[in-house]
């Protein structure tokens, strides 16, 4: 069984959730159609709490589509029909009684291309807490902003220019701002859709460090087409191929001894 060249694979520490802990999010039998075309076929997955789960696979295999099911962002797309069961802490998130706005506060998202609001840095981070009523006065709001920026590793760099527009930062800083914005509403799960693909290697390294720090407090699901990144940051990995989830398991197992030959082919770089 072929493995990665030496020195590339560095296994990350074991999941903090502990064996036997209930998964934070579960998906069963997810089938998704964009109009006539089916994009996801019978996806079953358990996302463990307080750990990083990576979704890998070649382009167009449905990773981004699936991750958008987890916070119902696919609702905003016309013609997108999903069947199946997605649960957060055991509750069905597609149930009619669920408030989508509340759901998205608990399950935050960071997008591929950094998209800060065209407002000040402060306003970017403060917007979420404000609309969810998480702060009762200005002092509390300031506190939340400071904490979020600090957790995102951005505070030192922007401390004295919080009123400047968020769009004036560099790419890596903008993405960290988006992460701070996601953290500010105190989510339980953070979904990241290829967060580093638009960034340079140094900024990428910062973000990966950040992800490692964050997993102590948040459950993270990250979509990436960069295998090495998945190997570096995640504890669990799922391999997607043409809308099917081919394999799911501990990251170390997936990369050292994949069960399915499609997984092996992708990991060894035969295609993808």
């Amino acid at each position: 069984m072929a493995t990665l060249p030496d020195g590339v694979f560095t296994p990350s520490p074991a999941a903090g959730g502990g064996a036997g802990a209930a998964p934070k999010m579960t998906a069963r039998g997810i089938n998704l159609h964009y109009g006539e075309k089916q994009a996801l076929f019978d996806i079953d997955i358990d996302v463990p709490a307080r750990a990083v789960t990576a979704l890998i696979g070649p382009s167009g295999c449905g990773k981004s589509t699936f991750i958008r099911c987890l916070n119902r962002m696919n609702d905003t797309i016309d013609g997108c029909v999903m069947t199946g069961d997605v649960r957060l802490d055991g509750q069905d998130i597609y149930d009619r009684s669920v408030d989508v706005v509340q759901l998205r506060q608990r399950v935050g998202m960071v997008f591929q291309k950094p998209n800060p609001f065209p407002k000040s840095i402060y306003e970017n981070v403060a917007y979420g807490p404000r609309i969810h009523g998480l702060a009762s006065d200005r002092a509390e709001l300031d506190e939340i902003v400071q904490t979020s920026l600090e957790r995102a590793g951005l505070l030192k760099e922007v401390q004295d220019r919080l009123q400047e527009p968020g769009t004036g930062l560099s790419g890596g800083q903008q993405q960290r701002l988006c992460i701070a914005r996601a953290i500010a509403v105190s989510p339980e799960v953070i979904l990241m859709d290829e967060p580093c693909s638009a960034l340079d290697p140094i900024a990428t390294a910062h973000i990966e460090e950040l992800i490692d720090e964050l997993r102590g407090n948040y459950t993270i699901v990250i979509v990436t087409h960069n295998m090495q990144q998945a190997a570096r940051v995640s504890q669990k990995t799922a391999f997607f191929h043409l809308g099917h989830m081919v394999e799911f398991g501990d990251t170390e197992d997936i990369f050292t001894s994949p069960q399915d030959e499609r997984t092996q082919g992708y990991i060894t770089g035969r295609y993808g």
Partner: protein
Amino acid sequence: MSDVAATGGPGRARDPATRNRRRYAAERRFRLYGLLSVAVAVAALLALLGSMVARGWSALHQTYVTLEVTVDAETVAPAGRSDAKTLADADYTALVRGALYGLFPEVRARGDRRALAALLSQGAADGLRARVIDNPALIGRTLKIAVLASDEVDQIVKGRAGAGKLNERQHGWLEKLKASGHIGKRLNVPFFTHGDSREPELAGIRGAMMGSFLTMLVTLALSFPLGVATAVYLEEFAPKNRWTDLIEVNINNLAAVPSIIFGLLGLAVFLNFFGLPRSAPLVGGIVLALMTLPTIIIAARAALLAVPGSIRQAALGVGASPMQVVTHHVLPLAFPGILTGTIIGAARALGETAPLLMIGMVAFIVDVPQGLTDPATVLPVQIYLWSDSPERAFVERTAAATLVLLAFLIVMNFLAVILRKKFERRW
């Protein structure tokens, strides 16, 4: 273009040098055409402005006759009564005419005196009346005041001889007054402070300006919120099906409907069916609002479309409801475009005449309108009415009113550009 055809296509071409030369020549010609088009447009604009200024400039000055008038106590405050009503009702015209007669003691006969008095405006004594009511202490004093001359005198003084309403003797008297320095020109204040009048020297655009202002107020108050809300709904919330397609086609068509049709609609529905007051800015405003609505909707939709989807996604991801996404993020970013569209629509509505003619805003209105239901007229209609009048003095006033209207339009468009620049944000 014909040059491409002439070279015969690839493979059969001449040598590269010739091809290059022809291509550069074609580009130079193309640029020249562009420049010529701009030049023609600018020339047309300058011709319009130039002719308006040339004709209307003289309207800013008005001829006045300086007279020494005694405020005779008997005439103004008979039997010692000097309350406001008595003062207002007194015959000041007689006083002013008396002063004029005093300058020409040889003129005795009544017919002759009437001819002499015709040199003055019918409203010549208005200024004196206002002053005396304001300050009754003037009673009994002799004042040197400037009274308005009639429009025929005014035109002759401005050099448009052949304003043939004056006979030989009146001409003679006028020459004598000129020679003795009683004739002078002043700023034409009545043009800006008076409403319309049969007498050109007393006619002003204030009534029309108030009418335009009130009408535009109603127009904007109705069309802006409705237009923006419609655009937001169609763009952000409406499902994409046959019905919304139908609505969109209809809105685009409405923008192209001739404006007089809206006037007919106003006449049939608002005046005849609902019984709203004729000639009122309220009805004019509603009609113009219907006309401006499609323009605003189309501009607002384009502005909303231009907001990147990533902003909406980001806001949704943080947990904003669709309404919050629109009001907190999309609308502020689309605002410059919406504002520009609104101002352009409003500028067009300001210059509209045909629909307002249909609802009766073509009447001769003297009083300056105070409210939305007072009969009124608007500036373009006023220009039309004056251009139709026989008196020569109205020619220059028509041009002057046109200049005022053009000034407003220029200011509004300028405002649109400035506001758009101010609110523009970079992503």
